[in-house]
């Protein structure tokens, strides 16, 4: 089971969904906060949903307010990077670049892509956490002295 969990995690990393930062979060996890990572990720999705909505609304405007979009995206990027959402983060960077050059289509396209990655990651980590919770107690038991 442990191995399965590890494999799951590994595949997430290999596929580029998560990066180093995720490991940092995991290191923060301890007995006092056994589900720290899950908590943070949940927090992220909750908070970022708000941002996604704001960006969506801004994208519907015409013409696009690129500086505002860039600002919103900057926040979103910061959040995403802090949980290690690698793919999402790279989409954010791309989006910001399109904003910088004023490419509306590019922005819109990238945003769609971003949403996709965002959703995919959410599903994957949910599975992961579920699994971790299942085997969690087992680990704790093993670790406890």
């Amino acid at each position, binding site marked *: 089971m442990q191995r399965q969990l590890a494999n799951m995690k590994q595949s997430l990393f290999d596929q580029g969904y998560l990066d180093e*930062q995720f490991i*940092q*979060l995991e*290191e*923060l996890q*301890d*007995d*006092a*906060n056994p589900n*720290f990572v899950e*908590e*943070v990720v949940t*927090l*992220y999705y909750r*908070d*970022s949903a708000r941002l996604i909505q704001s960006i969506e609304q801004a994208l519907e405007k015409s013409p696009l307010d690129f500086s505002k979009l860039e*600002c919103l995206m*900057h*926040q979103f*990027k*910061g*959040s995403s*990077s*802090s*949980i*290690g959402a690698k793919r999402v983060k790279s989409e954010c960077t791309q989006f910001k670049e399109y904003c910088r050059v004023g490419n509306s289509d590019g922005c819109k396209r990238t945003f769609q892509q971003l949403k996709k990655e965002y959703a995919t990651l959410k599903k994957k980590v949910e599975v992961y956490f579920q699994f971790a919770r299942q085997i969690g107690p087992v680990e704790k038991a093993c670790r406890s002295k």
Partner: protein
Amino acid sequence: MNLGVNSKSVTTSSASWKSGDAVSDQFPAGLRVLVVDDDPTCLRILEKMLRNCRYKVTTCGRAEVALKLLRDNKDGFDVVISDVHMPDMDGFKLLERVGLEMDLPVIMMSADDSKSVVMKGVTHGACDYLIKPVRMEALKNIWQHVVRKKKNEWKEKDTEQSGSVEEGDRQQKPTDDADYSSSANEGNWRNSRKRKEEEDDGDDKDDSSTLKKPRVVWSVELHQQFVTAVNQLGIDKAVPKKILELMNVPGLTRENVASHLQKYRLYLRRLSGQPQNGLGNSFLGPQDTGFGSISSLNSLDLQAYASSGQIPAQSLASIQAAALGRVTNKSGISVPIVDQRNIFSFDNPNIRFLDGQQHHSNGKQVNLLHGIPTNMDSKQLAALHQSGQPFGNNMHVNVHSPSGQSNSLLTQMVQPQSRTQMLNEVGGNQVLNFPSSVGQPGLSQPIPGSVFSRYGIDNVRPLTYTSLSQPSSVVEFSRSQGMELSGNSIPLTSNSGIPSYTSKGTLQEEVNSEIKGSRGFLPNFDAFNELNQNRTDNWDLQNVGSSIETPQHSNVQGRLDVAPSILVQPVFASDHRNGHIRTTSVNKAAFSAATSLGNGTNFGQQLTPSHADNSLRIKTERLPDMGFQSSLFPDHLGQEDLMSTLLKQPQEGLAPVENEFGFDEYQLDNLPV
């Protein structure tokens, strides 16, 4: 609080940790951190990380709330971590507020790692700037900022309050900071003022007792003021205190004046050691001295210079006279070869003026002076003028130039060399060039060649000056002042012919001085020629940087033989050739020499004023090349300016030069006159 929570993971230390007063023992544990970030995800993560570091964390999602928290708990926090982009308040603004009101160390954070933003953080006073996503390691060491700040505060308190350090007195901190900054400002103010005054990269003059005394740069203007004051008081009665009062230069201390006076006295002594050292005024000042010291090839001169030069050298170092800058440059170059020359050249610039004046009669010496003139402040030039007549002096300006033939030789040598050197050096030494070559004359033929080569530039320069400065234009060379001073046909102008980059300004003087000195050189002429030739070689070698130089060199070369006499000794050259006006003709010759780059035979032409123009032009041309040289040339009498400019440039070179000079001087001294 957290401790309790965290202590779970900490098995052994939890106990002590929980004890409460473990904070002080376990520093940095217990550090009180306030985190401000509008992103809840980041906030949570940071909080966790900091807790894991065993810090006491308080989180805040809004800047306004954070400020309130800080105000309500004045001493409740040790450090603040804030995000840059926040909706309600800009992170930098918060940073400023915290710094002003609470004077706490603030760390900025952002996903934005662009240089401009980071720079903004620095300028706003942030202790640190973290790039998101923040890692644990980055947060582990934030305690250093707290310690550092406390340490600085205490230090300030110490300095401000003479040692009574009040630990942890936050209130004092701001005061201390204020005091500290004010004193620093004062120092800076002083420095900037000094800079303005002296147009030098002067060292800061900081009177703060906590700092070591910055060196004073005796710029041309400053020196002039000094000399004026001294003259007013009378050289015998001139005491540092009174001089200081008369000078009325803020930031100048009695000690500065005293050391400068000492050098000046030596300089004068040196001059008087030479025939007609009426140059008193031309005390180039530390700069010159050092410079001159080098040039004083002549044993006499050298010695005089050596002593003065040495001092100046040292003082120069401290003074950073422009001359030094130049000298240093040169010395670097020429020193090796001709210590004397260097000295000479240095001196020359200084002396040039003096010599120039004297040289007129002397001819040879004059040249030397010319070279140096640059160093010499206009004041000196004036002095030169005055003393111009007694040719005997002429060399003394050069200080080293052994009055007589040797001088002439030197002069010659100096000249050609200076020229060459100048030319060569023009690129670099400018100032030095001159002296070196000039100094040489005293040395004796054999040396000159070498010297010249080294100094070539120096010499060269003076030459150019001479041309420019045709007797009257001494001023312009500022260096060549010497030339003008001499009034007598200071062949200096011929110096102008010297490719020397008068730009070096000093060159001019050197030239002038050389010319002057060269008078005596006639006999040396031959030697000079040889020298010239050597020099020309040198020139070529040295032509660094100044294209003009080269041409000049070539001219000089050709001329050297011819010109040397011309250049160097506008005085004597003319004597030779023209047997008359050396100055004018010489100048011309020099001039033409300069002008007729490559025209060995221009000599004849030289005599014509047109040449002078040419040389002037050449010089001016060179100036531009030289960069600062050009500034030198401009008829600014202020050789000082030139010198300063020159000096400034080579400033770095100063150091080495000085050593060299000092070194050289020494040698010179040993030279039997």
